[in-house]
């Protein structure tokens, strides 16, 4: 195949790897918690195996080798040759991280930390080393419960010279062919092990008019006479496991009753035939309903169509209600039914974009292992609510803030083992992450059992950096939340959020950019708890619908502090073109929203400013201004529509939305308006300087 043909298959492989790695890690985590279900280890084994198989197709040698090493350890674990304790699982979890790095390296061509690969390979080898010499290739038959002492067991290895006859049934699925496997190659490889007889099974072949040329109907019944052990036969089918029904059985040696055996084969339903090894169909430990992969664009299209439907339905309802006698005609109640259905439909469609936060939390357990290695602290992560579903875009953009919160908790929260011992705490610190739905939002709490926030120090730093004055009286909670203030942290690198030592103000800013809020509570000596709440989806937000400059505009509710009806005494003009308004005694700049957006809105009138409403808004840095609008129309949920998709980004406008009557309303970018006022002010200064 040409590279162009291979590219989509490669892409699919990497996509599958994401799921497989998740299965692998979920399973290993479960094993670490003492999950006794044998299916768990099978799932983990299959995941490693599938990655190896895929990697082999694309000739990713290092990845194949590493996955193979993992597989060996997992096989030994499955066979009970090595215990399922922390001494086994810690290296396995670390190996899963390395495996994920290797995959990323193949996918993105990123440089690889060879030292960590070598270390993980050595750790894996150490796990199997003492046993692997003593035990032959593990077979699935009777090895369970064996200790490492080689006990003579009646197995299929009682003499390499003794050949026996094996009966195999192979029935490929269509997927086997789609992955460019060829049964002929398998059969000829099998023939290399000994004399082979092949019988074609055409029982599943439908009549010609019902035949789907892309489906797989044929199977084979094989008789192989060989001295090779079962493992060697299985190895032939290594890369098609999961893509075919495969049955391997010894024929009873005394009577090689081939006629009776082969006679009932074709009639037996192949699917129901018991397989000696665990069924290769993916059935992960966590019972998951079947799912399909869907192109995200199609889902987004569906979301768009449904919001159109909602608008269409509203327009129809409005027209019907205007008709004479509408209330008696039954049309109104039919429309009510329709409205309920469209609302259900909208919720269902939004639910398609939702994903459980499990993948996010898994990344955090990996992070903890890394930070543990760097800091020398030992931390146990416990999580709750990993099934909670959130819009995938929110999950993607949560990774950085959550990463930093957890890093921060280990770096600054959890004390050194010595200090913990002195405080009478267990030497291993704990971080508890809870994800839950609350009041239409998703809430994430990160709680550590470290030293908590040192209020005296925070207070001193805040005074030192000029954030508060020494005479300010602050409550405990206010002091704690000073850590989110811009300028509190000493570091300046705001871009690399996941890097070390970035200020919490960056975390707060990125959370607020998602329409969220973050706060902290702390108890000295007992730990701190960060709580962050976010909207369930980025596609919908709460907004205040206002009119200004003759237009309908939406002000995001997250930016809105309060709305005030200005009184004459509250507003005054300072110099030319600057107006301030006192809200609860504090003066803030008063900006006419229509004028700020160049809608030709009236300039703010200093004499009679009591018309209209002032909205007190706050940007991400906490700076406040009052926006003058003509009137407040309504508060509602709006669907966010991009302006960039078909046009371009615009200053002062964050996005657009579609109103009930089908018209477009712009969503105000409060940050840009507050920042733009500052920039325009500078322009003024510059112009004055040039004049």
């Amino acid at each position, binding site marked *: 195949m040409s590279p162009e043909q291979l590219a989509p298959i490669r892409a699919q492989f990497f996509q599958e790897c994401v799921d497989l790695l998740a299965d692998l890690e979920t399973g290993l985590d479960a094993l670490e918690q003492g999950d006794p279900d044998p299916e768990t280890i099978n799932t983990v084994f299959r995941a490693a195996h599938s990655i190896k198989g895929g990697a082999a197709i694309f000739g990713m040698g290092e990845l194949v080798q590493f996955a193979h090493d993992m597989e060996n350890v997992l096989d030994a674990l499955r066979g009970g040759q090595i215990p399922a304790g922390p001494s086994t699982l810690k290296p396995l979890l670390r190996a899963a991280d390395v495996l994920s790095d290797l995959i990323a390296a193949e996918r993105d061509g990123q440089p690889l930390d060879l030292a960590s690969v070598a270390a993980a390979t050595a750790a894996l080898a150490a796990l199997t080393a003492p046993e692997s010499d003593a035990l032959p290739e593990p077979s699935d038959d009777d090895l369970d419960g064996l200790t490492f002492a080689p006990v003579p067991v009646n197995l299929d290895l009682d003499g390499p010279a003794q050949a026996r006859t094996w009966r195999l049934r192979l029935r490929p699925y269509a997927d086997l062919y789609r992955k460019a496997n060829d049964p002929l190659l398998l059969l000829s490889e099998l023939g290399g092990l000994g004399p082979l007889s092949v019988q074609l099974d055409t029982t599943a072949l439908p009549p010609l008019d019902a035949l789907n040329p892309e489906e797989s109907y044929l199977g084979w019944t094989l008789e192989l006479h060989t001295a090779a052990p079962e493992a060697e036969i299985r190895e032939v089918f290594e890369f098609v496991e999961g893509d075919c029904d495969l049955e391997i059985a010894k024929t009873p040696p005394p009577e090689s009753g081939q006629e009776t055996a082969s006679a009932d084969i074709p009639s037996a339903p192949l699917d129901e035939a018991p397989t000696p090894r665990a069924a290769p169909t993916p059935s992960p430990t966590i019972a998951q309903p079947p799912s399909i992969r869907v192109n995200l664009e199609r889902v987004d299209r569906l979301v768009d169509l449904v919001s159109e439907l909602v608008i269409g339905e509203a327009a129809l309802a409005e027209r019907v209600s205007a008709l004479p006698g509408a209330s008696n005609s039954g049309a109104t109640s039919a429309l009510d039914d329709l409205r309920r259905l469209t609302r259900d439909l909208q919720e269902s469609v939004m639910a398609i974009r939702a994903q459980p936060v499990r993948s996010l939390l898994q990344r955090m357990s990996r992070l903890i292992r890394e930070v543990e290695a760097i800091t020398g602290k030992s931390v146990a992560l416990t999580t709750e609510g990993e099934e909670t579903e959130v819009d995938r875009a929110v999950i993607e953009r949560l990774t950085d803030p959550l990463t930093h919160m957890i890093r921060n908790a280990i770096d600054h929260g959890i004390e050194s083992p010595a200090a913990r011992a002195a405080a009478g705490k267990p030497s291993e610190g704990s971080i508890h992450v809870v994800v839950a739905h609350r009041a239409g939002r998703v809430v994430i709490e990160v709680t550590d059992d470290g030293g908590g926030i040192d209020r005296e120090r925070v207070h001193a730093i805040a005074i030192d950096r000029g954030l508060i004055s020494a005479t300010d009286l602050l409550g405990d909670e206010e002091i704690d939340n000073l850590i989110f203030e811009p300028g509190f942290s000493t570091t300046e690198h705001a871009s690399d959020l996941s890097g070390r030592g970035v200020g919490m103000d960056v975390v707060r800013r990125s959370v607020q950019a998602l329409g969220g809020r973050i706060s902290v509570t702390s108890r000295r000596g007992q730990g701190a708890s960060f709580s962050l709440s976010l909207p369930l989806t980025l596609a919908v937000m709460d907004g205040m619908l206002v009119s200004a400059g003759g237009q309908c505009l939406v002000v995001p509710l997250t930016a809105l502090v309060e709305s005030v009806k200005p009184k004459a005494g509250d507003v005054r003009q300072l110099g030319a073109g600057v107006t301030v308004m006192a809200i609860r005694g504090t003066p803030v700049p008063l900006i006419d929203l229509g004028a700020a957006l160049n809608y030709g809105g009236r300039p703010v009138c200093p004499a009679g400013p009591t018309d209209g409403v002032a909205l007190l808004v706050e940007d991400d840095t906490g700076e406040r201004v009052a926006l003058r609008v003509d009137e407040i129309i309504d508060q509602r949920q709006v669907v966010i529509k991009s302006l960039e998709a078909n046009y371009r980004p615009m200053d002062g406008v964050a996005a657009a939305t579609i109103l009930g009557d089908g018209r477009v309303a*712009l969503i105000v970018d409060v940050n840009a308006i507050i920042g733009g006022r500052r920039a325009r002010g500078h322009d003024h200064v510059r112009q004055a300087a040039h004049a």
Partner: protein
Amino acid sequence: MLDLAPRDPAAENSVELITFRVGDQEFCIDATSVKEIRGWTPATPLPDSPPCVRGVINLRGAVLPIVDLAARLALPPTEPTARHVVIVVWIGRRQVGLLVDAVCDIQTVPRNQLRPAPNLKSEALDGLITALFTAGDRMVALLALDEVLPALSEPTP
């Protein structure tokens, strides 16, 4: 109506064009770029936009800009009514609506009848009009869609 230009059997040697009226002038664009044609609905004005951008409308859930071709061609701006027409076109991956007075015709024109536009010595039109062809007794100008919406990616200065 216009005389149809003779159909060329070799399709690759001809091009299908949609012709429309802006003021009393006739223009055309490549028909394969046209997504749909719809009546005018009021657009939401955008702050700080060039005069030819009338604003944005909602087209089945997508928000797309409307370009007043008259203003873009340096003619007096259109005063749109319900009888005006919006031609929705693809410009790359973007959908853009073109406000015109009326759509006239679809016609197939042999490529060899398209004459490159001369240097028009006009800042507004240079690059916008790529070719001209004669249909009956009229001269129709072919618009380059890429040039219709200027400075697409640059934010407002």
